[in-house]
């Protein structure tokens, strides 16, 4: 399966404050009562975007200056908690194409890469710099450069970021969904199954 390589993603960005933003926050469990991922986009961050009466809160995602932002900027341990792929699926369907954070929870990270949504890690100071840049001018274009592991802004920011080599390679080579490669080693899988006593 030839997939589209993801060398860069570019768009306007939004900073979502808070440490340890968990996947329940990203997509509350009640919206997982579904048998497809369709329609999850409108429920991303639902319980922080709306209060208990369904009224819009002052959350940045409700700020019209950031409408249409496609790069999410966050703090530490973004995506922790539940393994639900519904979380990155809802972000993708909401319109996000990439995430910059101080750190990520692992399962969220892997799920996001498999959906061709690059997640890169920046230092705390650099996250603040990006936040300040987009909050000063929400029209600022942010580019996540997976090739060179940099994040650049139309306003002149140029900062180093990191990501695991395997995620970078998967995105750049268009192998972010590994299913074909896994299927290709069918004979080796059978051999391994014979080796394992309990299979």
């Amino acid at each position, binding site marked *: 399966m030839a997939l589209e390589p993801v060398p860069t993603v570019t768009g306007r960005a939004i900073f979502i*404050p*808070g*440490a*340890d933003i*968990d996947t*329940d*926050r990203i997509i*509350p*469990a*009640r919206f*997982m*009562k*579904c*048998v*497809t*991922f369709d329609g999850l986009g409108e429920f991303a961050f639902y*319980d922080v975007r*709306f209060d*208990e009466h369904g009224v819009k809160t002052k959350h940045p995602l409700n700020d019209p200056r950031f409408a249409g932002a496609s790069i999410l900027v966050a703090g*530490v*341990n973004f995506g*922790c*908690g*539940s*393994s*639900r*792929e*519904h979380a990155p699926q809802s972000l993708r369907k909401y319109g996000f194409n990439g995430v910059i954070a101080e*750190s990520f*929870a*692992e*399962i969220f990270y*892997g*799920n996001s890469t*498999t*959906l061709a949504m690059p997640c890169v890690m920046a230092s*705390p100071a650099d996250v603040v710099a990006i936040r300040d840049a987009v909050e000063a001018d929400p029209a600022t274009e942010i580019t996540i450069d997976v090739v060179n592991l940099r994040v650049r802004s139309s306003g002149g920011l140029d900062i180093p970021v990191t990501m695991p*080599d*395997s995620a970078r*390679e*998967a995105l750049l*080579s268009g*192998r972010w*969904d*590994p*299913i074909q*490669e*896994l*299927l290709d*080693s*069918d004979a*080796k*899988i059978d051999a*391994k*199954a014979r*080796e*394992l*006593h*309990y*299979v």
Partner: protein
Amino acid sequence: MGKSLYQKVWDAHTVGTIADGRTQLFIGTHLIHEVTSPQAFGMLRDLGLKVKFPQRTFATVDHIVPTIDQDAPQDPLAAEMMQALRKNADDFGVTYFDLASGKQGIVHVVGPEQGITQPGTTIACGDSHTATHGAFGAIAFGIGTTQVRDVLATQTLALEELRVRRIEVSGDLAPGVYAKDVILHIIRLLGAKGGIGYAYEYAGDVFDRMSMEERMTVCNMSIEGGARCGYVNPDAKTVAYLHGRPYVDMSDFSATAARWLSFASDADAHFDDIVRINAADIEPTVTWGISPDHGISISENIPDPAKAKTPLEKASIEEALAYMKLDAGTPIKGVKIDVAFIGSCTNGRISDFREVAKYIQGHKVAPGVQALVVPGSQIVAIQCEQEGLPEIFRAAGFEWRGAGCSMCLAMNPDKLVGDQLCASSSNRNFKGRQGSSTGRTILMSPVMVAAAAISGSIADAREVFTIETRAAVA
């Protein structure tokens, strides 16, 4: 230099390396449930693929199942999900422990009780609490739905090898200090993100002495500490627990047991990090905030943002206290509760209910408190009935329900309302976790939940009950 259990299991299950450098790892056992599997079966159908080893995938229904009138959910979306799992299991030839089987329950309770969970194996499930199975010396971890598809289609996953941190807890736990307190203490010390990139090996005489069910409670919450998997090395207790269970091959059990034990970490194994904790430092622990690492002992005060060491920590405490509607610097003991929940994959096993039942006789749940007891599986429920536990709970004013995940994540009708505060034996105190966007959760051991239910407020179980010595714990 020797190998850790993690390295041995990893090596034994490595199929090869894929182009991006990740290992293709064989997943010997795959567990599925109704929430994270339907989309994966949809992907299989779209790709025209079959399940490669249908006999190695086991399904049950737990997240959305009601705990009253279980097989007839009023919610049409829940009914649709249950029907989808039935159809997928039938179409693809997967074993399904449904409600009619008498073996249904939370997937992390069902696996061990059926003997599907075994040492030296790899176990994956579209659920982050899969680390529970690490209690048996398995490498067990949560995966996303696209990865559920990968396991169904190929019985393998593309993965990065983790580093291993050995967490040694030594000494004696005081009476009234449980496995739940041990893991809440570890998470408090190492942080909710401290385990990123690591598998946790729980070692030392405290874990050696723990029952299998206590080890499951500890491993279960590895993910709350950021570690995707956590394990305890298999020993004689592991072997004894599995002996005779339905999915254990008894034809040459001594050889099987020897093979299981051979996976235990070598005495000279390499660890990337070692943390040592004194058991005597662990007290009954509760959370005060919105992350599982927001933990304090029952005798401590709620943190004060004014005393935070960094601006980030200050902001984090302020956010948590605003959500929890708690006052900085005041005791956690005495905070009024509305709901008490005993259950979940963390603390929904027979020993949890036995332990609580020992203390609640002669007590009554405080007026105005709703107290729910939800067994982890139908088998646990039957065992409880045989021992007369439901009567004890009901007499004390608790509601006794059917098996499932229930109010841990509130995908079924069991939900907090408004800003109700719940004393909960579950695993997550995230904002909105228990079904209300303003609902509040305080995590603790089941006996501490019972003490809170009876007191009507967060309490020290050692002051509410006369706690026996730990030797009495099953």
